[in-house]
């Protein structure tokens, strides 16, 4: 299947002009920025913040009761939401005092099994938020510095850095559309995306700039390798997503592992974005860069 994909992509790249190729990922980038902008305008942050960043309490128990009956049962606490996943119900609560907190913990632990509780104070959540922003910025700056050190020329390095940024923004916009909240897990995924996204871009740029042979040959070769890499990683992530999210459908004793599920879905979308960014955007920019000033449009 992926051989077919590589070939199709290869001929697509060959038969379209640089400007046409770049248009697709740039349009995607633009749409993502608009989505993030709208979310920012309506909520005050570019992505929907999860419990870890807003503060609150999350309680998940193994039960055969319905979500509604649990919502009733815990209505004396500031319950926001209850939903069923397989044989479990996950309840979300707003901020509470320390006393209410331990009262709730006691009540839940004495009545249910398979209990998972997570509580983050709003102040701590805000400080985590600040730290997460700093972490992402630092990662990004560090990555950019390494890339510029390796390639030393502006256009190819700048393109890789832009590609990584675009990957992250597209993945973040996807989170907004799919209703995935920003959690510690998804922050980790966005950072990991930096790592994955530069992998294939470094490969492409090295092959095109440092290998003998025509640009198109080098691009085709790099594509062969790069698509294999990305599809392998994608298949690993899809399996991880399915196992951590839906395995309870087949094996009822299993439950969702939210952290793994969040990390994998964000990475999956980020990698798909990365494929378009690497093989359409980066390719077109490199092609134009290597073949000279770009006055002459390459025809296949």
């Amino acid at each position, binding site marked *: 299947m992926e051989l077919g994909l590589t070939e199709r992509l290869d001929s697509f790249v060959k038969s379209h002009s640089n400007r046409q190729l770049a248009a697709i990922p740039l349009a995607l980038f633009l749409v993502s920025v608009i989505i993030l902008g709208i979310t920012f305008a309506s909520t005050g942050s570019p992505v929907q913040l999860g419990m870890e960043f807003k503060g609150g309490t999350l309680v998940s128990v193994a039960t055969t009761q319905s979500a509604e009956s649990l919502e009733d049962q815990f209505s004396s606490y500031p319950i926001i939401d209850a939903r069923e996943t397989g044989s479990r119900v996950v309840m979300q609560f707003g901020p509470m005092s320390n006393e209410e907190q331990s009262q709730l913990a006691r009540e839940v632990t004495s009545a249910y099994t398979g209990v998972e*509780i997570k509580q983050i104070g709003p*102040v701590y959540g805000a400080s985590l938020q600040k730290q997460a922003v700093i972490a992402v910025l630092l*990662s990004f700056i560090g990555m950019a510095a390494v890339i510029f050190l390796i390639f030393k020329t502006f256009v190819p390095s700048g393109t890789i850095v832009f590609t990584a940024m675009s990957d992250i923004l597209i993945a973040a916009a996807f989170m907004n559309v799919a209703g995935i909240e920003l959690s510690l897990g998804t922050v980790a995924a966005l950072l990991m995306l930096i790592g*994955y996204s530069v992998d294939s871009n470094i490969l492409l740029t090295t092959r095109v700039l440092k290998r003998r042979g025509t640009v198109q040959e080098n691009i085709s070769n790099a594509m062969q390798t790069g698509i294999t890499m990305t599809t*392998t990683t994608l298949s*690993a992530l899809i399996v991880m997503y399915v196992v951590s999210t839906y395995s309870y459908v087949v094996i009822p004793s299993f439950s969702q592992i939210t952290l793994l599920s969040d990390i994998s879905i964000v990475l999956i979308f980020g990698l798909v974005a990365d494929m378009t960014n690497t093989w359409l955007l980066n390719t077109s920019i490199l092609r134009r860069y290597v073949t000279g000033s770009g006055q002459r449009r390459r025809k296949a």
Partner: protein
Amino acid sequence: MREDEEQQSLFRDFRVIVFIIAIFASIIFIQPGYSSEEGFTTGLNYGLDLEGGSWLQVKLQGATAQLDADAEALSGAVLRNEIGDSINIVNVNTDNEQLVVTFTTTEQLTTARMDQLGLGQSTVTRENNVTEVVFYTSKSTLITSYLSDTLKAEVIPERTDSGSIEYEIRTPVSQEDLERIMSNVGGYIVRGSDGTPIYREGVREETRDLTKDILSEKLNTLGLKDIPVRVVGDDYILIDFAGMDLATAQDIASKPGKFEIRIATQGNASRHVLYGDEIQSVGIAGYNDRDGQWYTPFTLTDAGALALQRAAIETGATTDPMSHNLIMYLDENEVYSAPLSSSAAATLSQYPIYSWQASTGGDEESRAKAEQLQIHLRAGALPVKVEIIGSGQVDASLGEQFRSQAIFAGLMTLLAVAAVVYRRYRKPEILLPMIGIVVSEVIMILGFAGAIGWQLDLPSIAGIIAVMGTGIDHLVIITDEVLYEGKLPPRKVYLARITKAFAIIFAAAATTVIAMSPLVVMGFGALKGFAITTIVGVLIGILIARPVYAKIIHSVLEASAEKAASKSE
């Protein structure tokens, strides 16, 4: 024959030897085992989310600032607080850092009463129903007293390296509130050379460490020896309670222990003197030059001081201190026992004593004892107000389920990867080394985790799966560079290609490591595991495992090329 030589050269290669040693070492650190009851066992530590247990993250509330105030307004405020409204400040002399305050009052005062205030030495004269007091104090003593009265909290002054005095306030107080409180005595928050007020939220490092020690100590006295108490960031403390539910954990962390002082009566018998709530404050352990002993200072409340005086007189300790030890208990365990000093015994027969020093002896061991006592005297009450800002619980059955599910996810991921790689190359001789190397990388990450006692939690497992992803990526890059139209290229081309392949994967690995490192340094509890396993995994991959893959794939391809050649002959 030819193949034997090839094998030998492979095993003689430096990198291959390192690889084999690393694998063996990892297996030793993982300690895999099998028992009929437990199934597969390992020596690896699991995090709370895979083992079951609960955790608490607490924030230490307080502020540190440099402060100044008007000496006259300040001494007036402090004295009115301590003595009463009929205070009339006659004059205040500043002599270097010492303040000489003269005041008059209609109250009857004694030197003993003034000493009890703990503000400094004083001389008291009384004429015509007016008491005149001259006392020697310092601005920092007065500011400390003023703040702790106003805020009802402990305030600890300390001289900084630059010579100015910094006040640690062990209760939350905002900069604006502090500024307002100080302005009532003509004071302010001192500004630094750049004009910003010297104020920050949070307590000193030593206080944070003391709080951490008290928590650890308390958990130890409850017999919970293995509970790790860690400092996270500047003002956070993280406590992991393996195998305990959250409600119990919260109880343990927030309830102080039971502290009691008793006095020996006859033989092993003793009588109750006071409980921990009569201890007003506990100072910092110090060394007394005069008697060459380490000691822990503490002060008693009025009721406590009177109770101790009465007990000492009634048991006869004032006349025969040596046979009536003062004994201190924390949660029924004896933590200190010593007789009254002869001077204390003599004083007690007439007056109560408010400020005490518990001496422990002159050697290094006594120093540790004094520091220990400082913790015990607080009876597990923390020096700083703490707020639980984060907590969590995963119960044991759920943790076990997560564990097996995470392992299942890892195995399925590996199978998926194998399937895709096989589709691409269609050669078992490439697939097997590739999967073998990825598995070996996972073994080495686990071995490393076992060696440093790292706790594997869900984020760490996500990290391992992420490393498997980059690992395969890099092996694909190596394979594609080495394969030249499906065959092994000539040696010279091969060497040039392999160098280039490693240039690519080193560059990719460097960016991943750099991208992950902020998470290791910053205060995220949960993401640290993810970042560390990713970084360690990537380093193990590019330094140990992937070079060996290049070596193996080369000999495998060479061997298959020979086989093909001999077949065609």
